[in-house]
């Protein structure tokens, strides 16, 4: 029988050695299953290792103990099946919007005009028509993150790994980007792992929220957060507000612990 999970994290621990001081245990015996086409949020206080877990799934960091399977294969490095979006956008500053979006497509065996058409389609999808020849330095934070999302969607990865993608944006832009991301997810139905420390954002976006403990990071519990997200009043719905409270109480204890553990 085949397993319905697309991403399987099993008993993964991870240490890192800071520039000064002793080795730090960032993740301890983390196990997690993410289903295909699911939107999962990884939620936890800062320093809990949620980004580290995402980087391990992305193949950017070596896996110490445990194993991570993506589509049945052990992760052994980054690959175009897993698209990544970072908080700092990570756009090529020397490339225009169009060339940024084309970059991933250029590594694929597609005819030139098809690459151009695809790039344009995703620039249009994220609402940046007319900005094709702009450089990232000429764009606002929200626009930069749209370019990054378009660039990642354009090369058609099977899943999106998003590392606090809206963390650097102002509140209005963030809320706008959240509904746009949901709309895009409805359209493309890719598997999404979304790292955030914002409870509201996690509950609003994700179908399931995995709450992590303070360092060393473990999965504390997983909360089902499915609602009718199309409802424009969802933020005020009682079920939604209750769910935010429930998740917030789970995270609060960990946030307090994280604060206490912070070096003086």
């Amino acid at each position, binding site marked *: 029988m085949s397993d319905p999970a697309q991403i399987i994290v099993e008993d993964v621990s991870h240490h890192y050695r800071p520039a000064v001081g002793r080795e730090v245990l960032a993740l301890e015996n983390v196990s997690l299953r993410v289903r295909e086409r699911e939107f999962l949020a990884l939620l936890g206080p800062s320093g809990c290792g949620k980004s580290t877990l995402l980087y391990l799934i992305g193949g950017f960091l070596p896996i110490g103990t445990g194993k991570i399977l993506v589509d049945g294969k052990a992760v052994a490095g980054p690959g*175009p099946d*897993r698209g*990544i979006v970072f908080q700092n956008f990570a756009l090529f500053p*020397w490339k225009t919007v169009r060339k940024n979006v084309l970059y991933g497509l250029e590594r694929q065996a597609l005819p030139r005009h098809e690459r151009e058409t695809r790039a344009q389609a995703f620039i249009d999808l994220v609402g940046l028509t007319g900005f094709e020849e702009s450089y990232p330095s000429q764009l606002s934070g929200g626009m930069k993150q749209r370019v990054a999302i378009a660039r990642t969607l354009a090369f058609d990865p099977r899943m999106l790994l998003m590392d606090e993608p809206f963390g650097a944006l102002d509140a209005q832009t963030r809320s706008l980007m959240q509904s746009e991301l949901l709309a895009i997810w409805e359209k493309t139905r890719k598997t999404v792992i979304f790292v955030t420390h914002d409870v509201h954002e996690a509950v609003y976006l994700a179908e399931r929220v995995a709450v992590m403990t303070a360092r060393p990071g473990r999965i504390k519990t997983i909360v089902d957060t499915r609602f009718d997200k199309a409802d424009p009043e969802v933020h005020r719905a009682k079920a939604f507000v209750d769910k935010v409270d429930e998740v917030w109480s789970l995270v609060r204890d960990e946030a307090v612990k994280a604060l206490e553990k912070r070096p003086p």
Partner: protein
Amino acid sequence: MTVVPAPKAAAPHVLVRYAPLLILALAWEAASRLHLVSSLALPPFTDVVQAWVELLWSGELVSNGLSSLYRAGAGLALAIAVGSALGIFMAISRPVNAMLGPLVELFYPMPKSALIPVTVLWLGFGDGSKILLIFLGCMLPVTIGAYNGARGSDQHLIWSARSMGARGLRMIWDVVVPSALPELLNGVRTALALSFILLVSSELIVARQGLGNLIGYLGANGSYDAMFAVVLTVAFIGFLADRVYQAVVERVLRWRE
């Protein structure tokens, strides 16, 4: 959404900007004509201009100038090519850095003019020794610029490119080199200035032609007005080269905010 660039502060008119130069030339002329200084030490500016025109007509300025430009250009081109490659490989490879890092640190502060007799001993009085000297003297600023720039490559940018399928040399060319470019080009600007210093001093000491040689020859024969004309020519070429270079850099780095 600031797509419109901020307005730049209005630049003063060219004539206003370079007015101090005009004042300097007038003061020079007056000091010499009024015998405030000996006209041997400082020939009148108009005499210098006249000597410059004569040098130009005789073809001496052009032939020596071309010879100098060839030496500086070849040495600088080699320095940029080798220096960039060294700096970038030092930044991405620990063994390369371990090998070359101490050598770069050791040779960087050394006054490169000390190598003039050495390069002459190796390659003689011709172009070769000047090109080698300029190459050796100009390489390290480029290397250090490339190294610092490449080391500052954004980790997330490298990861992004990797997830989109870039590996090895492709990654270096697509991400590391452009990341290094601003600092690398700064290093090249330093190298450009150094190349003129090394060119003229090596030609002054041992050469059969070139602008530095011409300065030395005219000075030794007492043609001071012509000597000053060549000195001013060298200064002007240096200034022009820097200006052109900066314009090129501005164009290449136009993606920066």
